[in-house]
């Protein structure tokens, strides 16, 4: 006799066990090690002692770095959301355009950062082409323009693909229905398209934000030396020749993880509500 299929959401979780164990082993071990180091319980030299000194020693840098990283992540995610959503709406029904947009996704951020540097630096391609005197300080400048531009460029394609995938097959008929009910293009966008796209957009933006917040290489390559975004600070301290700075690096990493998890938690709640509204 055939067994009935489980109801959605009630399927047993054991098939995911190997993946869960692997993730917990790798990520969990790393997080525990970092936490122990940050709290002085796993020193490279000396006697283990519970202490918050590592946080206090770089407290000012942690604050500045966190604010800076949040600002970079917020700015790049906002641009990626707008560009990605607009691209997604253009993608619906145009396969070749979807393929073109997807070309950005496999390009590594490091390559993207190098390309962005060559493009936007004061001795870069754009400055030479335009021949503009007094080229703005886009790379290594005060406003971190090149860093934000690189993240936005790369993540907008990711946002576009995710949102276009979520809208595929659903949007067309509902937009037509709205039009026949009297909604013009703007009203259709506001009352139908955006609410439908919201869950996928929120999910994509969360991933983009957390990535931009926690990644090191783009900010290190295209940013200025000071102040340092949180991941750059953590990386520099972890490479320091002074072994006493390792707990400080760990403290920066702990802050990075805590803030990242907090963002994910808030986004998960919002996503749950958004999904409940649209399904």
């Amino acid at each position: 006799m055939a067994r009935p299929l489980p109801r959605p959401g009630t399927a047993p979780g054991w098939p995911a066990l190997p993946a869960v164990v692997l993730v917990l082993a790798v990520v969990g071990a790393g997080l525990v090690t970092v936490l122990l180091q940050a709290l002085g319980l796993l020193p490279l030299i000396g006697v283990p002692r519970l202490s918050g000194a590592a946080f206090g020693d770089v407290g000012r840098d942690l604050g500045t770095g966190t604010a800076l990283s949040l600002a970079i992540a917020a700015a790049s995610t906002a641009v990626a959301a707008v560009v990605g959503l607009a691209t997604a709406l253009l993608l619906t029904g145009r396969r070749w355009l979807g393929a073109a947009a997807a070309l950005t996704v496999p390009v590594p951020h490091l390559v993207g950062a190098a390309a962005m540097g060559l493009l936007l630096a004061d001795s870069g391609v754009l400055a030479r082409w335009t021949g503009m005197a007094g080229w703005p300080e886009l790379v290594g400048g005060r406003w971190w323009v090149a860093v934000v531009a690189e993240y936005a460029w790369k993540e907008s394609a990711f946002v576009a693909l995710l949102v276009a995938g979520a809208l595929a097959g659903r949007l067309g008929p509902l937009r037509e229905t709205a039009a026949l009910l009297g909604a013009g293009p703007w009203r259709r966008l506001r009352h139908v398209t955006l609410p439908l796209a919201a869950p996928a957009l929120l999910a994509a933006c969360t991933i983009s934000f957390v990535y931009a917040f926690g990644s090191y290489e783009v900010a290190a390559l295209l940013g200025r030396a000071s102040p340092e975004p949180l991941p750059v600070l953590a990386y520099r301290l972890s490479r320091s020749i002074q072994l006493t700075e390792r707990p400080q690096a760990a403290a920066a990493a702990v802050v990075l993880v805590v803030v990242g998890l907090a963002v994910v938690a808030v986004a998960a709640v919002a996503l749950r509500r958004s999904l409940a509204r649209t399904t």
Partner: protein
Amino acid sequence: MLDGVTRRYAVGGAAALDGLTVPVPGGACLVLLGPSGSGKSTALRLVAGLEPLDAGRVLLDGADLAGVPPERRRMAMLAQRPLLFGHLSVLDNVAFPHTVRGVPRRRAHADARARLDAVGLPGFERRRPGELSGGQQQRVALARALAAGPRVLLLDEPTTGLDTGARAEVHELLRRVRADLTLLLVTHDPVEAATLADRPGDRVAVLRDGLLQQHAPVGELYARPASLTVARLLGGRTEVPGTVRAGRHVSPLGALQLPVPVPAGPGVLVVRPELVELVPAGSGIAGTVAEVRVLGARALVTVAVAGAGGTARVHAEAPLGRQPAVGDPVGLRVPVDVRTVVPPSEDGERQQLP
């Protein structure tokens, strides 16, 4: 009014709809009836402005709608799927046409509540579309369409996905709310066509392969199909090839007098099964029961009649429980006024018989 409406999806390819010209009098119901791929849904989309015309015109009150976007045509559509907005409550779905026109929320909601009452769904305002049954969702979609205040209501197979009870409910609602609304109904179901196009001015246009086969009141389609395609689409089963000579159809059934003059030559006699009478053997046209199939409360009896030139198969209906058995000799009576002869080719409407 649809005037020479044509649509091609591929350059140089066959037309999905080829020069369709049919009047749609204000307040009447026009049914576009046809099998899948006949172009009927394309016609509806062209009328709604959801697709561009390749040729022809769509006129509303004499005005050409070319260049008028769907949102300004004052047409609403009830599709096969309810297409409710999942992110809105039932009340906000019905209030949607008012919301997008900038009507104050309180007034929009008051009207939406009245519309929900009218479709028999009071108390459902706060629910989400996903919490309703298919029939209830379709009723909400109807309330929403009516809230848009359309001049023309487009119905694209509106009950195809519903069970029998829900279908009947939606049909009854449509009949009740219709008033002076012009209806354009697309369906493959002749019963649905007959149910909704039952007023004097209502017409049915039968389409096949993008071409108009016949345009007539539904009763005439049943009684006088213009072609084999129309006869088959309306559930006709009996097709007896023969020859028309001097006003009679000559076939294995004999030389049957026709009710109207028909040009001499080859022709197929079509008769609806419910109009053929089964009588005791010895009277009427003699035949033998070849097959019996139960169709709900009725049985479809296939009678083989051997005659000059071969054997003809005639289908008749009998009440369930009173049907003869296979092999029984029976008689058939085909009243003169139900005999129709159509050209032998499927789409022989060009040789339209009177």
